């Protein structure tokens, strides 16, 4: 097991290095405008641009610049560790703003993940156990709706109904936990549910499929032949086997969301990484975009690693191969 984790960690490291390189290549070597001009402000003089270029290290060769970039990320800069650099637009350190927004996105993503896991597994389970009956049809109808309905439409409809018309919810924006648990929960409730619906639909279909597959397995017949109760056959034998594909998908999905849920954050006016990166793209704030991209890919790599370890824990066959 330890060797397995060590091997997978090496992979994560490799992926991160590759991602930093690609990010660097895309944003610093083929940018639409010269970063130095961007950073230098309105109508800069030639000398100012040259000064900026030097202070940003843009006068170095490509490899030196890349080295400095990686060094900043891994060893930190004058504003702390890990190094996020300086925003072109605000000319202030990115670090604090970034971490605050990453925290908002994290609350959104993890909350939604809890919702969609519960919904997805419950609906998939019901659907598989009542195969062909109305419960199955209703569940799969929901799944089709969830997969097809665009998140921005769902979000706006939900806001219209629960905020505008029914006044059940306090509206959009972010209310931090320290400002009161109730407000925090009510502000996050709709974003969680709306974001979770799409995933819940996918997960419900996957759980249904893998459960039905499990029910056809010989070892399910063995479990029944032992005289186990139907409850044990379903929850201990069938469900255990059908949750392993869910686990590996879950890691990747949660990882992706941690890098920012652009549409949900925009609709619900949440100051997360998604809205941050959209604004930075509009402003041409290259360092911020790079930070978000590196962070997002790191999140995917790490969450996939966690999922793989969990998978190996769940399925002994993986541990030894």
């Amino acid at each position, binding site marked *: 097991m330890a060797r397995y984790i060590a091997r997978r960690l090496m992979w994560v490291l490799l992926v991160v290095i590759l991602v930093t390189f690609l990010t660097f290549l895309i944003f610093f070597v083929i940018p639409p405008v010269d970063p130095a001009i961007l950073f230098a402000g309105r109508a800069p003089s030639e000398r100012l641009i040259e000064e900026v270029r030097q202070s940003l290290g843009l006068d170095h060769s490509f490899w030196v610049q890349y080295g400095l970039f990686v060094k900043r990320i891994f060893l930190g800069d004058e504003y702390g560790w890990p190094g996020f650099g300086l925003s072109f637009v605000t000319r202030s350190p990115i670090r604090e703003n970034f971490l605050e927004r990453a925290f908002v996105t994290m609350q959104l993503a993890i909350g939604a993940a809890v919702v969609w896991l519960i919904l997805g597994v419950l609906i998939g389970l019901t659907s598989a156990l009542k195969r062909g009956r109305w419960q199955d049809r209703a569940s799969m109808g929901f799944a089709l709706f969830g997969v097809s309905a665009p998140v921005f439409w769902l979000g706006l409809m939900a806001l219209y109904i629960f905020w505008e018309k029914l006044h059940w919810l306090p509206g959009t924006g972010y209310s931090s936990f320290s400002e009161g648990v109730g407000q925090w929960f009510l502000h996050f409730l709709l974003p969680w549910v709306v974001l979770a619906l799409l995933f819940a639909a996918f997960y419900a279909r996957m759980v249904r499929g893998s459960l039905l597959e499990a029910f056809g397995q010989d070892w399910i017949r063995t479990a029944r032949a032992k005289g186990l109760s139907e409850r044990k056959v379903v929850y201990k034998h069938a469900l255990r086997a059908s949750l392993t594909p869910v686990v590996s998908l879950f890691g990747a999905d949660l990882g992706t969301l941690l890098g920012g849920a652009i549409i949900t954050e925009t609709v619900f006016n949440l100051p997360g990484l998604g809205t941050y990166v959209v604004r930075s793209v509009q402003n041409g704030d290259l360092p911020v975009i790079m930070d978000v991209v590196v962070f997002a890919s790191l999140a995917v790599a790490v969450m996939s690693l966690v999922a793989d370890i969990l998978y190996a824990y769940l399925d002994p*066959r993986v541990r*030894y191969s």
Partner: protein
Amino acid sequence: MTHRFSRDDSNNGKPLLEVRDLKVQFPTPDGLVKAVDGVSFKIHRGETLGVVGESGSGKSVTFLTVMGLISSRDAHLEGEVMFKGRDLLKLPEVEMRHIRGKEMGMVFQDPMTSLHPMYRVGYQIAEAVLAHEATSKKAAWGLAVDLLGRVGIPKPAEAARRYPHEFSGGMRQRAMIAMSLVLNPDLLIADEPTTALDVTVQAQILDLIDRLKTEFNAAVAIITHDLGVVAEHCERIQVMYAGRVTETGTGDDLFYRGHHPYTWGLLQSIPRLDAGQTQRLLPIKGLPPSLIFVPPGCAFHPRCPYVMDVCRTEIPTMRLEEGEHAAACHLSSEEQQRIFTEKVLQQT
């Protein structure tokens, strides 16, 4: 554990299991599948019954119904399954569950897929104990280790902690047998227990079942498509075709005094090492019938080389020959004996 050896012997003399005129029919969009069509047989304590037939002959379905793994929810059931004085077809599922695994155990064909891949072998055996006995997990685990040892798995305490994928096919089948015997059942049903195994391992598994039958004082039913494999391990053999029993008797009855043309076909298709290089195997011509449109009369008549007019219209009944040897065929006993000695014995 004292219960292991205190046995209810009140029904001595009576068969342990008696199936009477069992019919199992599955409704499908294409029509009713008559998987089992009026099967009757008995198994006594200490006896091994071999059930032989091609795939689709209804042999597995018969015993899955006996186990209650096919119930009235899945199929239309008729007849009686008398087990220790109770008709299992009339028992509610809750009671049936307590018989399954405790009073009768079942071993399946493919040991590679019959164990849950994610649980330790010992755990899966202990689970069977805990499903029926109010005992501690530790005691159940101990019993699992004990059984693994008795089915011939080396270092059973260590093996119990392993996962199925760390076992070879033969080891897994031994583990399956351990699992089905852990509560000392009265009846062990082995559905093609050796089909998926190497030839050398096949013999070991059958010998093991033989030995355990005596040790546990159980009755055994071995379901197989291979007459040759089980012949020497069974007191009685029952041949099935298209959901019906065609012939039943001892191994010698079938091998040296067979009465049914289908049995002859099976005998002629067993390869022999001492046969000359030039001698060909004689396959049974044609295919097993559809179980939705079973041929009228004797279901075997379209493939039977000795077919008569009556075979096409009337279903033959079991005719007792000598002892418990019986066959369902319209040919007269004399005719059957003549054909058997002239044609079949020459070629087998």
